């Protein structure tokens, strides 16, 4: 009933306006608001966000560098889409940490993973490998580095899924898991081509 009344009103408006196209002027678009995080959180939520802020920053450096080098169009499109979506994720994560009064970065002990049997590949390692790659090697080097980088993101997201309590942060961890696995699929196809 209500829809019909609205449609009639819209039609009447259009007639009044003497407008041949029936569509009424749409209401001004309201962009979606940045997602907010509840005030309830634990140390895992904070640590995950801080680690992901660092990890995102490193990933952004890599995809920005790719812009300055020769790649296929598909790789350039993928790097560009990762850049803009991870930039937004980074801003959201920093916003949540700020709201909670927590630092947006954590002092990271580079040897924290040594007891797991291996050192992580740091952003500095990744950037050094990328910078020294020749034009012929760049795309393969970039894809292999970014695949490994995104595998690491999935591993970090698992920590939040298992130990975090904040529903929005856990949802972001789910988003990251799904998104990075899909990116890895694309990149494995590109690196094998």
């Amino acid at each position, binding site marked *: 009933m209500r829809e019909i009344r609205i449609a009639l009103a819209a039609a009447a408006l259009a007639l009044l306006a003497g407008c041949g196209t029936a569509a009424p002027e749409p209401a001004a678009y309201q962009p*979606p608001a940045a997602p907010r995080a509840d005030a309830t959180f634990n140390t895992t939520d904070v640590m995950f966000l801080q680690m992901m802020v660092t990890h995102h920053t490193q990933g952004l450096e890599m995809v920005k560098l790719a812009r300055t080098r020769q790649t296929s169009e598909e790789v350039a499109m993928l790097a560009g889409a990762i850049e803009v979506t991870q930039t937004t994720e980074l801003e959201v994560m920093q916003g949540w940490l700020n709201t909670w009064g927590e630092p947006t970065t954590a002092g990271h002990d580079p040897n924290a993973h040594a007891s797991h049997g291996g050192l992580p590949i740091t952003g500095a390692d990744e950037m050094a490998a990328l910078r020294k790659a020749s034009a012929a090697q760049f795309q393969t080097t970039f894809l292999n580095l970014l695949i490994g980088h995104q595998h690491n993101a999935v591993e970090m997201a698992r920590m939040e899924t298992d130990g975090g309590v904040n529903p929005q942060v856990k949802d972001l961890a789910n988003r990251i898991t799904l998104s990075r696995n899909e990116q890895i699929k694309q990149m494995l196809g590109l690196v094998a081509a």
Partner: protein
Amino acid sequence: MRRLVAYPLVALGLVTASLAVASPASAHGYVSSPPSRQALCASGRVADCGPIQFEPQSVEGPKGQRNCHGGLAQFAVLNDNSRNWPATSVGSSVTFSWVLTARHSTSSWEYYLGGRRIAFFEDGGRQPNATVSHQVSLAGFSGRQTLLAIWNIGDTPMAFYNCIDLQIGGGGPAPSPTAAPSPTARPTASPTARPTVRPSSPAASPTTRPTGTVPGGAQWAPGTTYRTGDEVTYQGVRYRCRQSHTSIVTWEPSYYTLALWLPI
């Protein structure tokens, strides 16, 4: 009105699969090019691989084995030659590239073909670089072959195993994978309708996706190349693409993708 974007069921499926396999600490590397069997599973080119598709870097087992799955029962599919693994056409010299997720100190890298070791790279316990590749001669071999590549860790008794199916020299195109990729046949990929068991459909393979202009009014879909200016409908709202990309789940229109999709 705020639209919640949540993927709880999907993520639950993912995490359950992952936890059943290994802790993240034991996940550290595989051959991506030419693609190893675990890479073919992770990329979706080969379907129904089970948990390995989420952890291609986890095929870790005691040193000295000559199999594709490192002796891990949950990855036994990698050892199953009846799966008709697609073979990559190569010449007589091949560069093997690895994805590493941690830099284990490394004893050596070994490549086996036809029951004998054809290449050996001694690292003497050093940490590898962030990426690793080796050029290996396949001289004397031809036709369809399965190569075994092994990463021997320096400070543990463990190694990482990869089988790589090759069509060496000349030869026609590689046999097709067990299921032909079909970019349109992915009904389960919608984030709202996804079952807890993640589909292992090969549909999203970037090499087979449709390209070019998307017909106006089409529903947003993953695995599609959208060009700047293309228009889609998503949850009843029309959007225009602002930046060309090949879509994936999580890149549908939302707050996180305002740089990709503008409502119109």
